[in-house]
């Protein structure tokens, strides 16, 4: 099974109305890897993700999926190859978990292909993977923020696409659920051979889980590559305007960022 779909941006400019947010950006998403986009607030990381997911029309440049400009491909066809979890999806009132996750099957259905056992299997698998199986017939309204987030991830999983783009999927989650979600995404990459792109806030988790990390600042990529190679004190300072020490994560042997603020600094460490 060859699943290596190629997603790349070339000379990409993205913005809303007059304001340009992403400028002249080039990126090739490594196939079969977990790519994490990091950066300070308003650096354009979510905008880039929306552009890659064809949710935002570029003002210049283009995004290519398997060599074809993604904005010119039929959106239904894209939806069978590339799944997206946007930042703030809306759950309709009273909808049940199974029903919402089932909506992920939309691109696989049509007038002549209605609901089949294959769809049931995809929903069951997505609910099991996100540990939401026990909640299948519960209304989404009644769930906690973290459970709701996992339902949305399950919906994107039910879409069964080889490429998966998620905008801050760990927001609202407790630390244990954050780790669970990232483990789940890693499973998809390692055993499912999928390509996953995630926007994350937590730099340490990003360093631990990313095969490929993309650091952004004011709409451009400052550095990209393996976390061990590119996440240095200089890059962190450049991207976040933050003085930090970088240690080895004792668990994963990846960079562990220790921020240095103005207070609670026991040992003065001048840079």
């Amino acid at each position, binding site marked *: 099974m060859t699943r290596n779909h190629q997603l790349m941006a070339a000379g990409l400019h993205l913005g*809303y*109305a007059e304001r340009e947010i992403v400028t002249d950006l080039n990126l090739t998403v490594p196939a079969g890897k977990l790519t994490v986009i990091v950066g300070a607030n308003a650096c354009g990381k979510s905008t880039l993700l*929306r552009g890659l*997911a*064809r*949710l935002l029309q570029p003002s210049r440049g283009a995004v290519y999926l398997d060599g074809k400009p993604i904005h010119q491909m039929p*959106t*239904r*066809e*894209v*939806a*069978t190859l590339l*799944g*997206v*979890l*946007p*930042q*703030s*999806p*809306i*759950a*309709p*009132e*009273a*909808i*049940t978990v*199974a*029903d*919402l996750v*089932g*909506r*992920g099957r*939309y*691109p696989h*259905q049509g007038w002549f292909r209605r*609901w089949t*056992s294959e769809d*049931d*299997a995809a*929903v*069951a*698998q997505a*609910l*099991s993977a996100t*540990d939401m*199986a*026990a909640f*299948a*017939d519960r*209304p989404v*309204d009644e769930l906690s923020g973290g459970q709701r987030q996992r339902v949305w991830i399950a919906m*994107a999983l039910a*879409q069964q696409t080889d490429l998966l783009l998620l905008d801050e999927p760990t927001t609202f989650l407790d630390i244990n659920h954050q780790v669970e979600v990232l483990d789940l995404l890693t499973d998809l990459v390692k055993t499912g051979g999928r390509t996953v792109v995630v926007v994350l806030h937590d730099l340490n988790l990003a360093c631990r889980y990313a095969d490929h990390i993309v650091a952004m600042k004011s709409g451009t990529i400052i550095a990209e590559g393996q976390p061990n190679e590119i996440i240095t004190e200089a890059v962190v300072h450049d991207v976040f305007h933050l003085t930090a020490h970088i240690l080895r994560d004792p668990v994963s042997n990846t960079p562990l960022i220790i921020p240095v603020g103005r207070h609670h600094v026991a040992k003065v460490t001048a840079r």
Partner: protein
Amino acid sequence: MTILSLETIAIVRRQRLSHARRVTFGLLSALLLACTAAMLLGDFPVPALDVVQSLFSPLTGSANRSVDFIVLQVRLPRLCLALLSGAAFGLSGIIFQTLLRNPLASPDIIGIAHGASAAAVFCIIILGWSGLSVSLGAFAGAMLTALAIYLLAWRNGVTAYRVVLIGIATAAMLSAVISYLFTRARLFEVQQAMAWLVGSLNAARPEDSIVLATMLVLVLPLLLALVRGLDGLELGDDTAYALGTRVEITRLGLMLVGVALAAFATAAVGPVGFVAFVSGPIARRLMGGAGRGVPQAALVGALVMLASDLAAQHALASVQLPTGVVTGGFGAAFLIWLLIASGRSGRVN
């Protein structure tokens, strides 16, 4: 981690399907009951058997001409018009409410009914029209108002919130236009315009139902082609795109269908208030999340319209109320309940 089996999820889905079927069956039964009542009740008592005989008289030949007249020319056209217009209002309401993700977004709240009303009042008072030409004017008014709201709300695409706000503002503005037109009118014209504005089935003729039914049949294929798009659109634009929905074209098409349905129904019976507004939420509540409830909203709309018309005719022995007065009272109570209920759950939509 619990592993969910294929069978479990199939059972969950089948339970929801059978619930949806029960709701549909219940609504159909209630409708049948209301239809029977509508055919049997009236100032001129007709035995049930004679009503049935009259219904078949076009085939079997007439037994009693005056009974035939009452059954076929008075009660049946009124019943059919109530069912058709109610269903159209119900569909229009749930399309807008789902599309704009807001129970307040029904065409009788966001100004489309007001557009029809203002145009009709203009036709009656300024142009001195009556009858079918007023209906055509009302239809044009509804379509034009919807277009204006859509264009005013457009800013690199249409957001639900802007449509609702601009719609409510438009409704207020058009109400002012109606009030202004009244100040310039003679008493007789005001009476005629008021009768139209309240909305009534008193003047139902067989032709009205035929025209409305034809229009509905023309619109339904478009609705059927687009209705699946609602599943994506109600999750937000980004999610809809992500799932492969062609967002702008689907939304525009569905809005067109919703406006056309509201405009046809309003042209036929006047802006009977709140039927479009209450049908969707009632249908959804009955369904309890077991589907999007579009056909059920049509049934609820027909039922609300017919039951209100029955109440309007028979609740007070001495007077016949216009149907719109009953739906208005019912709808206002429902609106208050909805606001209280959504306030309690802390949810605006």
